[in-house]
Every structure is written in structure tokens, then in C-alpha cells.
């Protein structure tokens, strides 16, 4: 047992720290710290900076132009990025579609799409969920019918994150209705400007519009945009979901969030003393910090297992559940710390949001973040689905 990073890992950590110090633009870090929503330009700027250093495609094999970092290195990067207030890397092309292409796509598809992901030529979004297919994703109904050298797609996707920026969508579609749900699904790549596609924004409870409905009416998709075999899409989708679970614990976000809570609790006053000295508030902070320290070690145990090639199974589900509980608890502490200054509706969607926020530094977005991050326990396989996986895996082992 050694709880410390190896010399090699420590070297990597200093390299990442230096990179963040030199290359992360101040205006982007300020926006992250202020809780601002990201524009397409912001994301593309940060992606380009990472790509210029060869650090954008962190989990890709070198043969495709990736950094091929192991799980520990990726963890170190995520930790440092969160502490430096670096923008999140938008994962749809890079860490969701790309691994599927590399594993199941043709050489032509890889040669065409992968460089475009790296260069930022394409912005991908994910067409998975439907109004009737959430936790039960395999019941999806968007239909694709082969007609000569094209599929004709009809149906509706929902909760499509950042579809308003995307020029490409990877979609799960039903190509066979005669077999059981999981066996009639195919994986298609669709250009967003194809006639018959309509994107409708969904305004969320915090006033932001990061998700959309995407409607398909007789959309023609060339057959060469099918990944792998027809009707085998569920296998590819499941493979993708295992990649969606990297950084599932969100330790970096939690560390940064907890630091922000402490900063605010030092400046906010309670009974004439800093709030951080208030025994009840101090206890709340300590409680979540204790949970976070343990979860952080759990995360490292699993990450280090994965770096040696072990595939996380139910452990990933455990990290998802515990990680989201902790992140949501930190959001809850942040809103408490802000006191009455959590009240303003400070969404960027509201006119005049360019004015400085009310109250102490950092209070502006706390309420919006609390409400917005209710999504953490809902998306990417809800916490209920994760608990099912944990129980079924364990009880299955008993049999």
C-alpha cells in the first residue's frame, strides 16, 4: 500500500500544473469560477489549446492521434483542471463517439471523422434518450428504414445536450421491430443540417437552455453513416456508456466546489463571526469533506485498478451514486452559505445578467447550480439504475 502518486505521476502532475498556469486563458477561468454558461467559442478555444499540446484526445490510442493517458493520468488532469477552473472538455465527440468509431467503425469512417473531432470541424451531440425511453433506453422508437442507399429516419430525441451548437449527431435508431428491443437498434451518424431535422430548445428550471428536443421527419441518411452492423447498435451503445463513466465520481468538481464553499463561508458573517466558525456550518462542511476524502480514495483505488487494465464494473456505479450525492451536497452547502444572497434569479438567460452579481463573491450562481445539478443523479443512467446494477451484480454473484 502506498497512498502517494509514483515519481512518474508526480512529474506528470507538475507538467499539468505548469500547463494550466501558462496556457489556461484567464477569461475562461474567470467564467468557470463565476459559474457562467459556456459559449461555443469558449469551448472551441479551450479545445484548440489542448489539441495544440496533444492533450485533447486523452484516452485515444496514439495511432489515432491521442495522448493515450492511463486512468491515473486522466485523473490527475481532471483534478488539476478543476482546481484551476478550466472549462470542461465537451465529451460527445472525444470520449463518447470516438471510442465507438475506433472499436467498431470502418477505416474510412475513422479516417474521415476522427481528425475532424480533433480539429474541431465537427461538434457532436448524442441522440439517445426519447420521451418514452429514459432509464429504459432500449425501448427507443425513432425509426430508420433502409431505402436503397439511404436510411429514412423518423422520430424524436430529447435531453440532447448542446444540440444547438452541433453540426453532427450520433443516434440510436430502431431498424427492426420484429425482435426484442435490444436486438433491433442501429447506430447512425447524421448531419444536423439534413432536411427534416428540427432542434427545439428546452428551458431548464434554472433558466438555462443547454438541452434540446431533436425532431426527425423523413430524414435521409446515407448508408455509409451506419456504424458497424445494422441491428447491432445496442452493443456499441453499451460500449459507449462504459466510456461515459470515466470521471464519473467528479472528484475534481467536488474539490473545487468545496473550496468555493469555504471561501464564501470565510467572508460571510454569522453572529458577528465568519460563518466558517459557526459550529453547525463547520460541521456540515466537515461532514461532506470526510465523505469526499473517502470517496476520493475509492476513486483512486478504482482508477489505479483500471490503469492496470482491470475493468470497473459495479464500482463505477458506486462511484456515480456516491459522487453525485457529494456534489449535490456541496451545491446545497453553497446555497446555504450565500444566505439571502442565494435568492436572485441570476441566470444568463435573464436580461441584465452582465451586471455584477449581488452579494458576496461567488454567490451569484449558487442557486442556479443547486437546481441545475439535480441532473447529476438523473442523467448518464439515473442513480436508481446504478443501484439496480449494483444489487443485481452482487446478488447475481451469490447465485
Amino acid at each position, binding site marked *: 500500500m502506498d497512498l502517494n502518486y509514483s515519481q512518474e505521476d508526480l512529474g506528470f502532475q507538475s507538467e499539468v500544473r505548469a500547463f494550466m498556469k501558462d496556457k489556461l486563458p484567464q477569461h475562461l477561468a474567470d467564467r468557470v469560477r463565476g459559474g457562467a454558461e459556456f459559449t461555443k467559442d469558449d469551448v472551441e478555444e479551450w479545445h484548440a489549446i489542448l489539441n495544440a499540446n496533444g492533450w485533447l484526445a486523452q484516452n485515444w490510442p496514439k495511432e489515432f492521434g491521442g495522448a493515450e493517458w492511463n486512468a491515473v493520468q486522466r485523473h490527475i488532469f481532471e483534478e488539476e483542471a478543476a482546481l484551476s477552473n478550466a472549462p470542461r472538455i465537451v465529451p460527445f465527440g472525444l470520449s463518447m463517439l470516438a471510442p465507438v468509431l475506433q472499436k467498431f467503425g470502418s477505416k474510412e469512417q475513422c479516417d474521415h471523422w476522427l481528425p475532424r473531432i480533433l480539429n474541431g470541424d465537427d461538434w457532436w451531440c448524442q441522440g439517445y434518450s426519447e420521451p418514452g425511453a429514459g432509464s429504459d433506453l432500449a425501448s427507443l422508437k425513432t425509426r430508420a428504414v433502409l431505402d436503397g442507399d439511404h436510411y429514412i429516419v423518423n422520430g424524436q430525441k430529447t435531453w440532447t445536450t448542446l444540440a444547438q451548437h452541433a453540426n453532427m449527431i450520433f443516434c440510436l435508431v430502431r431498424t427492426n421491430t420484429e425482435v426484442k428491443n435490444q436486438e433491433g437498434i442501429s447506430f447512425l451518424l447524421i448531419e444536423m443540417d439534413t432536411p427534416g431535422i428540427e432542434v427545439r430548445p428546452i428551458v431548464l428550471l434554472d433558466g438555462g437552455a443547454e*438541452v434540446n428536443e431533436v425532431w426527425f421527419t423523413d430524414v435521409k441518411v446515407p448508408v455509409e453513416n451506419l456504424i458497424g452492423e445494422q441491428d447491432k447498435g445496442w452493443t456499441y451503445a453499451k460500449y459507449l456508456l462504459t466510456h461515459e463513466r470515466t470521471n464519473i465520481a467528479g472528484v475534481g468538481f467536488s474539490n473545487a466546489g468545496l473550496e468555493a464553499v469555504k471561501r464564501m463561508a470565510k467572508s460571510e458573517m454569522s453572529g458577528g463571526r465568519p460563518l466558517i466558525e459557526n459550529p453547525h*456550518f463547520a460541521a456540515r462542511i466537515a461532514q461532506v469533506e470526510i465523505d469526499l476524502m473517502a470517496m476520493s480514495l475509492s476513486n483512486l483505488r478504482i482508477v489505479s485498478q483500471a490503469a492496470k487494465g482491470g475493468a470497473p464494473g459495479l464500482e463505477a456505479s458506486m462511484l456515480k451514486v456516491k459522487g453525485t450525492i457529494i456534489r449535490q451536497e456541496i451545491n446545497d452547502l453553497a446555497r446555504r452559505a450565500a*444566505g439571502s*444572497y442565494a435568492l436572485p434569479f441570476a441566470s444568463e438567460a435573464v436580461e441584465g445578467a452582465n451586471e455584477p452579481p449581488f452579494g458576496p463573491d461567488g454567490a451569484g450562481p449558487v442557486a442556479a447550480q443547486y437546481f441545475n445539478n439535480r441532473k447529476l443523479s438523473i442523467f448518464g443512467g439515473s442513480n436508481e439504475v446504478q443501484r439496480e446494477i449494483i444489487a443485481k451484480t452482487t446478488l447475481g454473484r451469490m447465485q
Partner: protein
Amino acid sequence: MNFELTEERQMLQDTLRRFLSDKYDVPTRNAILESDTGMSVDLWAQLAELGILGALFSEDDGGFGGAGFDIAVVFEELGRAGVVEPILETCILGGGLIASLGNETQKGLLESIIGGETRLALAHGEPRSRYDLSRVETTYAAGKLTGHKAMSLGAPNADHVIISARESGGIDDPHGISLFLVPVSQLEMRTTPIMGGGTAADIYLNGVSVSEGKRLGAAGEAFAHLETVFAAAITATCAQTLGGMESATRLTVEYLQTRKQFGKAIGTFQALQHRLSDMLIELEQARSAVIGAAGYLGADTRLRDRYASAAKNLMGRAGRMIAEEAVQMHGGIAMTQEYELAHLTKRIIMADHMFGDTDHHLERFIALSAA
């Protein structure tokens, strides 16, 4: 012992419930939320005409109610429908202070408040006071108000704002605090819509001239009266939150019965059934906490404040649990602004940031219990 509402209050509840279900549907409310003022003047006039504002005042003050259970009945219904108009600010805080402290001239305002022609707000909290009621740094000296008031609820839509200021004593001395009734036109304020509806303002008092005639009650003697209206405001907020929790729970029950995944209604899954049961249990706790606060609102101050703080603490916990569980069991749909639950959730949670949060009232309950 009798836990039934009186006939009059039953009628008040029925009238208001029927009125809001006819006149305050979700599209109407969403349009109000998006309007510049964040409230409906028409609806305000109709509520006044219906006698809802009058139900919050005693007969002596020109109303026909004003007791704890009148407040609880009205605000539970307002909360059930997610009403965002500044009734609490105007009637419970502003009207309550004028009724208990105003001279005959100042009390003249009560008629126009009950008639729906005048709205009030209270500016008491400050950036460094957090939820402490006695901590007032704003001063009144030589006829001028100087200080900074934080998040004065309803001030953007008020005609007059009641401003607390210190005339003597140390920074957190209960003695020495006075209240002044100031026309809104004299105030420099920065306004904001608030999460979940309604408005608030920070008020910057840079030596605002206010004559002594604008003082409510005797110099330096306002604290006990502030405590009294805060007890009423806590009762009202808790009742409003209870109404919101009832609606959130009802929506969750309906959703569990109708939403299908894996070929059946998700309410058939035991993992969700047990969580719904816990919500229903907490809802009953919450209902009792509100009855306690309302029932002891007229009692001696220690008994009153123990029940008020107990209720606010319990609502903070139960409200959060119900709001979060309702959203979680709905999934993504509950995250959308246009769905009713999103609005209710925001109101339930943001109530924890008004009149003292869960922790504040836990500490206050401990202090009151030791006294």
C-alpha cells in the same frame, strides 16, 4: 381538542382554492414570471376584492381574521398554486408592523392595503447580519438613514418600504432599533427577480432624509414588534411551503401512476414506492409543524418562537427532502421550466433563504430551549 377548521376558515379555504384553480393556472403564472414586474396587478385587485388580504388582518385593523390559522389557511392555498405575488411582504410584514406600531395617521394605510391599492415591503436584513434579527448596522441620526439593506423582498413592487435603523445601542443590541415608513420614490435600489418568482432589492441608504414623523412607534423600541411579525412571517412561509409540498407530492403520485418504463408504470417498482411513502410521512410532519406554529402564534413569546423555529427548521429539512425526491422520481421532465414541479421546487427550496434557514432556526430553538 379539535383539529377541524372553523366554518369561516373552511369557506375561506374553499373560496381561495376555487379562485386560484380558475384564475392562476400554470400558463398564467408563467406569463407573470416573465413579465417585467413579476406580479399581476389585476390578480392583486381580485384577491383584495375576494377578501383574501382582509383575512390577514384583525377586525380592529379593518380585516376579519389575522389569527395564526387565518394566515396558515391563506398561505397554504397560495403555496399550493405557487402564487408569486408579494402578499406576505405587504400584509404580514408591512401591514403587521403598521397595525402593531402605527399611529392613527399611519394606520390610515391599512384600509388601502386591505383594499389592494397599496403595497409594502420591509427592509431589515443587511449584508453582514445574515439571519440575526437584532444585528442592525444601518443608522438613523440627524434625520438621515445611512446603511445598506440586503434582499428586501417585494420592495420593487412596493409603494412604501419600512426600513429598520439603529438609533442607539451596540451592533446587535435588541434595544435601539427603530422603523421608518419611507416612500419608495426616495430610495436608491437595485432590483432583481428571485429564483422561484417574486422580486427583491438591495437598498442603498446614503444619508436619505427622513423626518421623525415617519418613525413607526417609539424610538429604539421596534425589536419586539419585529419578532412578532417574523413569527407570523415564518408561519406564513411554512404554510406556503406546505402547500407547495402537497402539490409536489400530488404530481409525483400522478407521475408514478402514469409514467411507464420497462413496460410498466414506474410506481410498481418497490424502490420508488418506499421513497414515496417517506415523502408522505414527511408531509404529515410538515402539516403538524405548520399547525403548531399557527396555533401558538398568539401565545407568549417563548412558546410562540419555539414553535415557529421548530416549524422553520422542520420545513427546511422536509421541504428539501420532498423537493429533491419529487424531482428525482420524475427524472428529466422535472428539470424543465415549463413543468409545474420545477416552479414548486424552487419555491420550496428558496423559502429556506427567507426569515432564517434550517440551521439558524436549529440554533434559535436550542437557545430558546435553554432560556
